[in-house]
């Protein structure tokens, strides 16, 4: 397609303008996003005997990884597990909401979309604290569950994996809804109507037509939910207990309170590798490679 520049600018100048425009932003990301990875990797190979006070030596200490994984594999596992469950829940809840907005909301579409992002307007931490109140031991949710005997008399929700997963699900739901909505909205409603003639039940029609067409949204949504959820530690910290610590909690405390940079770095790199690996595998099986 002919752009303005094809017409307007002489060739040489055209090429340079592109570079000048992208340069500041790209440089910022290169220096403060790409190079830090390099620092992180080298940090992860520090001699673990160093400390903030005495300084660190970079000694290609690969055993940091072995030690970190060995010591914290529980947390790593738990992070993936919690994030996976939260993502699945988000997918189900988010799909219903996105579907309702895309096809059923009529003239309330815009309003509902605004409402989806409205929770972002209050602090993430405050919303998480609210869940602490909702799930509190003497709160009405626990009371109600105890009354119907779904929960034992001394059973609790707060400080359990349930609370952490509920928090994660709640906090990352909009990240699921928005991409889902974006891909559902592109679907021609007539296709769905046509499918209701072709397939016996609405459910089969949905499975054969709507769902496959919304796959790009499903893939984008699950990634955008899973990745931040796996690295999160706020929910585990505010709603959980020492038994629900996620890898984020560990990295954060190794860095800030224990000053064990080497282990923290190794754990961080491990988390990144696991996530990149999982994402690549997932994208391959889901068959959508044009995410970028």
């Amino acid at each position, binding site marked *: 397609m002919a752009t303005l520049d094809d017409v307007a600018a002489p060739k040489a100048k055209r090429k340079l303008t592109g570079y000048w425009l992208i340069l500041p*932003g790209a440089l910022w990301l290169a220096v403060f996003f790409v190079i830090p990875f390099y620092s992180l990797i080298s940090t992860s190979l520090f001699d673990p005997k160093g400390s903030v006070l005495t300084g660190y030596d970079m000694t290609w200490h690969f055993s940091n990884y072995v030690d970190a994984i060995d010591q914290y594999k529980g947390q790593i596992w738990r992070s993936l597990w919690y994030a996976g469950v939260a993502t699945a829940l988000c997918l189900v809840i988010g799909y219903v909401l996105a579907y309702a907005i895309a096809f059923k909301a009529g003239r309330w579409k815009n309003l509902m979309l605004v409402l989806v992002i409205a929770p972002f307007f209050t602090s993430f931490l405050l919303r998480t604290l609210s869940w602490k109140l909702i799930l509190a031991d003497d709160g009405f949710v626990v009371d109600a569950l105890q009354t119907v005997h779904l929960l034992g008399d001394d059973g609790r929700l707060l400080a359990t994996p349930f609370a952490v997963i509920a928090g994660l699900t709640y906090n990352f739901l909009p990240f699921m809804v928005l991409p889902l909505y974006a891909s559902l909205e592109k679907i021609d409603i007539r296709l769905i109507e046509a499918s209701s003639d072709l397939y016996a039940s609405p459910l089969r029609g949905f499975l054969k037509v709507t769902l496959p067409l919304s796959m790009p949204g499903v893939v984008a949504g699950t990634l955008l939910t899973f990745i931040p959820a796996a690295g999160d530690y706020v929910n585990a910290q505010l709603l959980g207990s020492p038994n629900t610590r996620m890898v984020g909690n560990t990295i954060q405390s190794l860095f800030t309170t224990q000053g064990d940079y080497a282990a923290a770095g190794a754990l961080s790199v491990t988390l990144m590798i696991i996530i990149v690996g999982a994402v690549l595998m997932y994208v391959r099986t889901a068959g959508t490679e044009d995410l970028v």
Partner: protein
Amino acid sequence: MNTLTRAKRWIGKHLILGLGILVLIYTFVPIAIVVLMSFNDSSKSRNVYKFQQFTFDNWLHPGRWADGMLDSVMLSIYIALCATVIATILGTLAAFAMVRHRFVGRKAANIIIFLPMASPEIVMGSSLLALFVAAGFGGQLGFWTILIAHVMFCLSFVVVTVKARLSGLDDNLEQAAMDLYATEAQTFWRVTFPLVLPGIVGAALLSFSLSFDDFIITNLNSGQEVTFPMFVYGANQRGVPMEVNVIGTAMFVIAITIVLVGELARRRQEKALAA
């Protein structure tokens, strides 16, 4: 019997919408609690995060109990403003480069811009910290390191938002402007820029809220500085002052007002014109 089938059909038709609305209500429950707690009088027992007694005190004297709170709010606003300005400018320029220019390394740039949105915050925060420490700024963490970090993670969102707007632009419009005697500069300022502006404004609002709300990355790179989310996090360990909910509620109300006023103005204008 007839009414029964009709009711059934009505339910079938509205079931999904109803479920969707339930989900929305669910997302608002915690906000309702934030608002509620902003009227809670917790002076009797601070360590219990629970509604005890109604009061306006939190609203009247938000700085009363929590000394550091207002400072942290000011700091957060200040950082968010700075980060928004820088990220919006850099991101908008980059978006123009990506959509309007062909250059070597465009694919690589695209990936670098996408990656921050797909990296866990804890990893980004810790790598940045590793960089600062390695570069010898380990002792000088504070305002500048927070700002750098915030610009970094806001940038990608700005680029994506502006890019979407820009690539949706019909390039016939710019050509029409040039056809109508507008030079390249005039075409940009009279046609391109006004048309992309809503995208830029949206990106700026997004940046502001991302920056204001960030905790994980900030916490690793803040040194002695305390932003509002950090204040809340810290306060959680001592017993949360109800005043934080005042800030949360105020933020929410302000943001919703901005959105509603914008929407109303748009509708009003449309109606007036259509008449």
